[in-house]
């Protein structure tokens, strides 16, 4: 029983971190209508960005997180402008393939610059806090708070700012949005910036807890896709729910099956969702 509770706590923390890139992926999909498979590289880029800010410039975690967001977001926007935009008339699958190519390029830019060595943040590690038989790490709590804060900021951005509303409007009804004077290209670029930025923030939180190398993002990418699909592609609350679910499922599953199959949980979740409820938990296009 304790084991289950403990795994559940771990799963929720993992899920909260997973939620950021999952939101990013789903938000980009909602506005641009193609799956941007470069999310792995965006997450890795964010991890390196945060690390540079922290280890080189000595920035504190929150500032570094902002740096991670901005760097990954900028990379996303540049990728979109330079490589992907021109391919959109050829259909979403072509863009998705190009996004994979972009992922390979970005990952190798990092490899070129930093090599394959592991990097770690300059932060003290603390022992876990115990609540009865449950334990949770201060870093986890901090990550949880940061993840929730980023999500809250995102929801506030979408709910209260003019441009955030314009983003939702474009995802909802692009033709009408254009008619109302909302510049689609600007909104799309913003969506990519925010989406890739969230991936970057998620990547950095991941790096905080663990370590960073050019494959940091790749390791979680299947779980991210699973979270987005389970929640319903294009639905932001869905991505949050999906991420928590996948986080929980991955941790709980280690109690039942070999831990080596953790990565396969996402795949199974995707298959189950598509077979039983193809539009995901919350359906597509819901905000």
């Amino acid at each position, binding site marked *: 029983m304790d*084991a289950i509770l*403990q*795994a559940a706590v*771990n799963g929720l923390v*993992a899920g909260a971190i997973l939620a950021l890139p999952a939101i990013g992926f789903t938000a980009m999909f909602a506005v641009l209508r193609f799956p941007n498979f470069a999310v792995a590289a965006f997450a890795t880029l964010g991890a390196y960005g945060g690390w540079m800010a922290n*280890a*080189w410039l000595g920035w504190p975690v929150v500032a570094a997180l902002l740096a991670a967001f901005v760097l990954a977001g900028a990379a996303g926007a540049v990728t979109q402008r330079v490589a992907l935009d021109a391919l959109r008339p050829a259909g979403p699958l072509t863009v998705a393939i190009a996004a994979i190519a972009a992922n390979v390029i970005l990952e190798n830019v990092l*490899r070129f610059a930093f*090599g*394959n*060595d*592991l*990097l*770690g*943040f*300059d*932060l*003290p*590690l*603390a*022992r*876990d806090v*115990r609540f009865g038989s449950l*334990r949770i*790490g201060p*870093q986890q709590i901090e990550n949880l708070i940061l993840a929730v804060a980023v999500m809250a900021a995102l929801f506030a951005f979408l709910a209260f700012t003019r441009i955030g509303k314009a983003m939702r409007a474009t995802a909802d009804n692009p033709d009408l949005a254009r008619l109302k004077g909302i510049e689609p290209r600007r909104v799309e670029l913003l969506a990519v910036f925010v989406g890739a930025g969230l991936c970057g923030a998620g990547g950095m939180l*991941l790096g905080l*807890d*663990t*370590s960073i*190398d050019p*494959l*940091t993002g790749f*390791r*979680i990418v299947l779980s991210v896709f699973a979270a987005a699909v389970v929640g319903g592609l294009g639905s932001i609350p869905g991505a949050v729910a999906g991420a928590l679910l996948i986080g929980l499922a991955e*941790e709980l599953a*280690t*109690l039942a099956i*070999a*831990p*080596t*199959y*953790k*990565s396969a949980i996402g795949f199974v979740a995707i298959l189950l969702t598509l077979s039983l409820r193809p539009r995901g938990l919350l359906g597509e296009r819901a905000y």
Partner: protein
Amino acid sequence: MRDRSIRLTRRTALAAGAASLAMPAVVRAQGEPIRLATLTPLTGGGGSYGPVMAKAAATVVEEVNKAGGVLGRRVQLTSEDDQTNPEAGVRAARKLIDVDKVSAIMGTWASSVTTAVAPLCWESKTMLCTVSGADSITLLPHQGYLIRTQPNSTLQITRLGEYVLSLGAKRVFQMIPQTPFTQSSIKLMEAALKKGGGEQGSLIYDDKKPTYRTEVDQALRFNPDLIFAAGYTPDTVVLLKDIYRAGFKGKIIGMAYSINQKLIDQIGQAEVVEGVYTFAPSPAEGATAYERVKKITGMDNPDPYTCQVYDHANLVLMAIAAAKDASGTAIRDSVRKVSQGGGKTVDNAVDGIKAITAGEKVDYVGASGPCDFDDKGDIIDCKFRYEQIKSGKLALLKIA
């Protein structure tokens, strides 16, 4: 810590560049050179070891060339990347064997790469010197074209089990990712512990996960007094952090190839790794060859692989000198003549070749140990090095 890793990269970059630029000119001047190659993981999972390994071999070749080469010929060393990936390894090996026509390939690291490349080597009569440890490798029908300087898993784990018992641990939990030696590691440890009345629990984990909290929980439920962390550096970093967070108070032991200075720097907090034991086939600490490797690489504690590949290069060059023939078969037939069986003790190829040319019998004692091989190509006995991390530094406990 960051400075360190960058400096390392830059230095290897310069070395590699210099090697590739300098070589052709020398070759033209000398006619038909002797061709050798390193095939190390410059990228991928072993990417942090390969570059230094390649450099160590390159330096040996450089020294020999400076001293006039072997059999009056220059030695040309080609360095390829196996990407820690057997498919890429096979493609690279093909190129080395077919295009570069090398007579020896040195330094293959991952067991899977070695297993994939070995058949190409024995079929083309190319010597293969490896640092991979999986038992299965020397059991391949390699017809003598393979030697390894790394003790095999059986030897390693048996010794480790004895040591663990000597530390007073009775309940040992092994946490290990899926690798070629995973099964044997668990089985051998189990057997070793049983002999001393110990007990083992084990868990195989996925080495690509960002956190191992639940896995650690599972380990703690076994109530171990020692955890054997048998992964590679990247996953062991994560694992040790999570073990620390979980408040584990028992002992931890791991392999020195993963728990090294890099890992300590990585974790960055002495407390987390304080008291962790490491275990490794010992480089011949204090041996003169070992001191040379230190100088070449600029590392305080050169890792065993770098030492081993340094030995590969020396052995191969001396074997060529002894056979008066640079073919793979010649190397196969004469490598044991220079590595063992008594004679003048030498610690580098320049001295060795001089002695051989003078008609002396030599016995190489390398940076990784005495370098004596049995018929299968396995190293005969080997010293092991036991260290413990004390305030962020690896402190030597014993070599035995």
